[in-house]
Structures are given as C-alpha cells and as structure tokens.
C-alpha cells in the first residue's frame, strides 16, 4: 500500500534529524526500557516472595538494576536498529537509523551502535554542534538518523552488494 505523506512533511523527509527530535526519541526509548526493567525487578520480587509468603521488593541493588537496564537498553536498541532502523521512540518521532548507504544497518553495525550509545550517551550531544546533525557515534560508525515518516523499510544493506549510484548519495 502506498503511503501518502502530508505535503507539509515531505520537504524534510530523508534529511538528517536535529537534536530535539533525537533527544525526545531517546528519552522515550529510555522510558520504555526503564518500565521494562522495573517490571522485571518487580516480577522477580514477586516470584521470590512466593517462597516465603511475604512480598517485599528485593532489588539486586542500584548497581544491579543499572546494569540490567543498560543490558536491556543495548538489546532493545540493537533489535530496533537492526530490524527496522527504529525503536519505539524513533517510530513515534518519525526517525530512522540508516547506514552510510541510506540502508538498514546490518546486525553487527546495529550492535556496535547500540553499545556506543549506551556506553557513551554524551556522544549524542554532538548533534547540537555538528554541521551534519551527527552524533559522535554517527561520525565513527558512518550512520545517520533521518526523518522518515514513511512506514516502508529501506533496503537491507548487503556486505558485497554493488553500490547503486542512481539516486543514492554517498556522504562523508
């Protein structure tokens, strides 16, 4: 089914997204993972409580919860970026992560980007001053976050696929 975008939205489709959209999408993603993490911790407490008949939230400690959240965040971002180029936050904000060919990232690239974003989130702030709206992770991994309200998926990047030149722009 062909998707018809509002005329007002067409001019910026495919351009690199700015810091506000990206920050909002990231905040939504962190919120989703925080909820899942909290749910897991509560669920674990509930299971534990079944043994002694009392319910008390016995967390694995702040560090444990933090590490669990970080692990889930990596997993969540990786799956989103490697499958559709989107997470829930990016879906809501109409953004998509693509590689240097404008195609979906390969699983390895998605994992690297997810690790880079979770380990060094401050790198995302580079979008504020980058002349190409790129975060440090984007610069290093040659990725881009674009406005893409279209539900249609871009093509999957193939390791040895010939680079199509028609209509495709290689960026630095």
């Amino acid at each position, binding site marked *: 089914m062909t998707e018809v975008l509002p005329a*007002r939205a067409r001019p910026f489709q495919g351009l690199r997204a700015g810091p506000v959209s990206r920050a909002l999408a990231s905040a939504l993603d962190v919120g989703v993972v925080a909820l899942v993490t909290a749910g897991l911790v509560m669920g674990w407490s509930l299971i534990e409580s079944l043994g002694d008949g009392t319910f008390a939230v016995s967390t694995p400690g702040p560090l444990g919860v933090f590490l669990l959240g970080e692990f889930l965040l990596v997993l969540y971002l990786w799956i989103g970026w490697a499958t559709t180029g989107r997470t829930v936050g990016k879906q809501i904000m109409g953004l998509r992560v693509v590689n240097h060919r404008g195609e979906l990232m390969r699983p390895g690239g998605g994992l690297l980007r997810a690790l880079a974003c979770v380990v060094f989130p401050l790198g995302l702030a580079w979008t504020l001053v980058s002349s190409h709206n790129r975060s440090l992770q984007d610069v290093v991994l040659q990725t881009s976050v674009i406005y893409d309200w279209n539900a249609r998926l871009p093509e999957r990047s193939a390791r040895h696929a010939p680079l199509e030149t028609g209509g495709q722009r290689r960026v630095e």
Partner: protein
Amino acid sequence: MQAAAAFVRELEPRIARAVLEPLDLTALMSESVDLDELAEQIDVQRIAERIDPNAIAEGIDVDRVAERLDLDAIVLRLDLPTLVEDVLAEIDVADLIRQSTGTLTGDAIDEVRYVSVDADRVVARFVDRIIRRRKRHLDAPGEPESAAGRNEI
C-alpha cells in the same frame, strides 16, 4: 303563473326520478362512455398546480393525529433486535471507531513530529549563530521514497 312555475319545479325531481330509476345507469355509462378517453382529457398537472399543500398541511391537526396513534403497538410490531443488528452490520461500528481513533492518534503524533522538527530548526539556528556558522548540511545518504529533500531546513 307563479303557481304554475312552482308546480313544475315540484314535479321535476319526481319526473326525473321516475324516468331514471328503472335505468341501470352504471351499466349504461360503462357501455356508452369511454372512461379512458375521458381521463386522458383531464389535465392532472393543472389540477395539481391548483392544490396548495401548505393549506392542506395547515388544516391537519398533527397533535390530534399523533394522539390517535398507538405507538406502543407499532413498536411492539417491530423486530428491534434484528433491525439493530442489520443497522450495525451496515455501519460497521467497530471499523468506524477504529478508523476515527486511528486518525486522531495519527494526527496527534504528526503534530508532535512537526513541533519537534521546528524545534530542531530553531535549536540548530541558535547554535549556528553562536558559533558563527552559516548553515547545516543535512543531506542524508540514500533516497527514501518519501524524501523530497533539500539540503537545509
């Protein structure tokens, strides 16, 4: 003279009745009069134009007519469950609700996206002004089907 005239007027109906009563006028009319031909000559349109529906409507006492209606009897004669089912089947309420809520949600999300795109533009201009940069180059790789890209916003 006047007495004679009065006598004739008195007799006229009796004479006419005496003449006509033995006759079967209905049979006579149907045999001798072509009613179809007669009907064709009637200008129904002209008659209809002379009728004033408003005047007729004004003469009707709607309240009185309504009072005489036995609505309960009418309602009881209706097969309401079947009627409601048929109407709902025609309307497809579930689809209607799905479409309307979907559109509302989609519109709300679009508005949030527009606001954030505008905010991106404002923040970028603000930062660019501080660091004295003229503009950003936002050309992205690839050419998404939806893209109608310019290299700046």
